[in-house]
């Protein structure tokens, strides 16, 4: 007699083979070390070109990556199947774990020195408000990135390493990226406005 009850199939995302999740991409570490080392040399030497390079490249990539991921990759990811989302995230998120803090460190450290080098720090108020506004914008982004997004990023990666990851938990954590995307998007556009204003004083 056939069994009248059918076994309940586990969600496909949790049963099909998943790529091994490496939290920190080891091959990226020498690149990060080289970038930070170069930054230290640039700060020590206080060379205008080097500081400008680090600030423009770091800031441009930080803003570009944030906006691209928030406005393009995020919505596409939301429409993919769960297995596709998992596969993408397990490859994408570890790289972001290295890339974003490196870009932020590059941008902030060189930016302060650049402002001092060019005399921007000495601009009196009310013009100085443009600089203060940039500090506030960066501060908001830092709290969101370090306080909300990076913890979620790490927690998701560790959860995906488990034999039976909690899909609801992963979904809940990933939602942080959705509801902070608007705030960080506005902050990044504000950064573009402020930086181009300061550069053309």
């Amino acid at each position, binding site marked *: 007699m056939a069994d009248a009850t059918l076994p309940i199939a586990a969600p496909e995302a949790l049963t099909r083979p998943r790529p091994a999740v490496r939290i*920190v991409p080891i091959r990226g570490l020498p690149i990060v070390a080289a970038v*930070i080392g170069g*930054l*230290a040399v640039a*700060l*020590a030497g*206080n060379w205008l070109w080097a500081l400008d390079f680090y600030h423009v490249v770091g800031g441009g990539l930080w803003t570009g990556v944030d906006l691209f991921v928030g406005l393009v990759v995020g919505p596409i990811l939301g429409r993919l199947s769960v297995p596709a989302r998992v596969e993408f995230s397990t490859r994408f998120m570890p790289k972001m774990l290295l890339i974003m*803090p490196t870009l932020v*460190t590059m941008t*902030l*450290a060189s930016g*302060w*020195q650049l402002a*001092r080098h060019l005399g921007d*720090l*000495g601009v009196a108020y009310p013009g*100085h408000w443009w*600089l*203060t506004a940039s*500090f*506030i914008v960066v*501060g908001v982004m*830092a*709290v969101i990135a*370090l*306080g*909300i997004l*990076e*913890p*979620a990023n*790490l*927690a998701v990666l*560790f*959860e995906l390493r488990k034999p039976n990851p*909690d899909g609801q*938990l992963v979904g809940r954590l990933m939602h942080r990226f959705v509801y902070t995307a608007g705030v960080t998007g506005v902050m990044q556009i504000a950064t573009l406005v402020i930086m181009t204003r300061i550069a053309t004083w």
Partner: protein
Amino acid sequence: MLVASMALVVAGGIYVSAQLPKPPELVPAAVLLAGAVLLLAAAVAGLARQAVFAWERFRQVGGWALCAYVVVAGMLEYVFVADGARGPLLTVISLMLLVFAVDVPCLLGFSVARYQEQPPAADR
């Protein structure tokens, strides 16, 4: 609490930076720093009271994160020292960076460890 502590440190940093290169008024920054320290202490105390917690994972994640953020805080400290910050200003900035460098690793370690399997009762 850790996020709030970080936010207070960031606010203090913004307040000080907005006044440089003139000698900044440090009292408001010191108040923000004190608030950040209190929140960090409360968070650590609350965490220490957890009888059942994935401490091994917390130490693993927090430890490596601490290494990374010591480097970040160190670079920012170097920038301010190279710019001539001294005395009370340097003290306040250094303490802010120290709180920041502890806040983030604790937050990362906790965020991961809270969802990990608890260790067996015999190992607690």
